[in-house]
């Protein structure tokens, strides 16, 4: 049992990133909702095929907004993954809570596709920047990649994780680019004439 636990703990990789947007939290969180649908930016985030809202709930007492979205992503993997998986489409669930009172937005995205082999979880938080809470926003992002032990992928776990991580990093950079554009656009829109 200890051996499997040990193997299991070796098979998780976690990556953290932080980014500061020099825009207020209200604008950044609004930009996050628009990130995948913005037509100009669809070219950059072309791996995102469809985004559907499955559920939404507003708690009018606490000011908390809960949303569940389904993301369909085009995720062609390296050749050895494709031979096992045989498909290039990945479905993910994104669960979001926006706390209007404390000005905090948290998103958690997990894959549905291939859950038995690999679990990828991405957590993103948008909070007002502690040093400049009215004008800046901190984005903390943590991605964990876990190859299920004893699965078909276990023997090449390290390589798969590395490939996944690379892809995620690339997509994170693109995502930030898109967010910055949307924020600048929204800023220009709201500027006094």
């Amino acid at each position: 049992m200890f051996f499997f636990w040990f193997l299991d703990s070796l098979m998780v990789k976690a990556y953290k990133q932080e980014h500061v947007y020099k825009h207020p939290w209200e604008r950044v969180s609004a930009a996050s909702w628009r990130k995948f649908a913005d037509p100009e930016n669809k070219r950059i985030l072309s791996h995102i095929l469809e985004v559907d809202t499955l559920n939404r709930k507003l708690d009018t007492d606490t000011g908390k907004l809960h949303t569940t979205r389904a993301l369909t992503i085009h995720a062609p993997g390296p050749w050895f993954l494709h031979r096992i998986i045989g498909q290039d489409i990945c479905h993910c669930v994104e669960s979001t809570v926006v706390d209007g009172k404390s000005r905090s937005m948290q998103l958690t995205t997990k894959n549905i596709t291939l859950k038995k082999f690999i679990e990828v979880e991405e957590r993103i938080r948008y909070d007002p920047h502690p040093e400049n809470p009215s004008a800046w926003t901190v984005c903390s992002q943590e991605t964990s990649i876990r190859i299920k032990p004893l699965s078909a992928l276990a023997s090449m776990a390290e390589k798969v994780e590395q490939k996944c991580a690379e892809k995620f990093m690339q997509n994170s950079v693109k995502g930030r680019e898109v967010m910055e554009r949307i924020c600048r656009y929204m800023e220009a829109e709201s500027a006094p004439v």
Partner: protein
Amino acid sequence: MGLLKKKDSTSTRSSTSPCADLRTAYHNCFNKWYSEKFVKGQWDKEECVAEWNKYRDCLSENLDGKILTRMLEVDSELNPTKQADSKESSR
């Protein structure tokens, strides 16, 4: 393609969801409400209800049930406390 019931298993990336227009209408309404009301502290009532209902009805008719079940499973793992509520609001 995506979440939809598969008619053609080799569907290309260029096919569009039949609910795309309703989805856009709902998302546009939501984005407006979010920026103009929610972040300014106005969360006293649910808005975009008509748009949401139309969009959701379309999804119910077109969604691949198997994928949806798995999605809701993962969603309840992520949000164990709101499981009861989501069952109610998806009626």
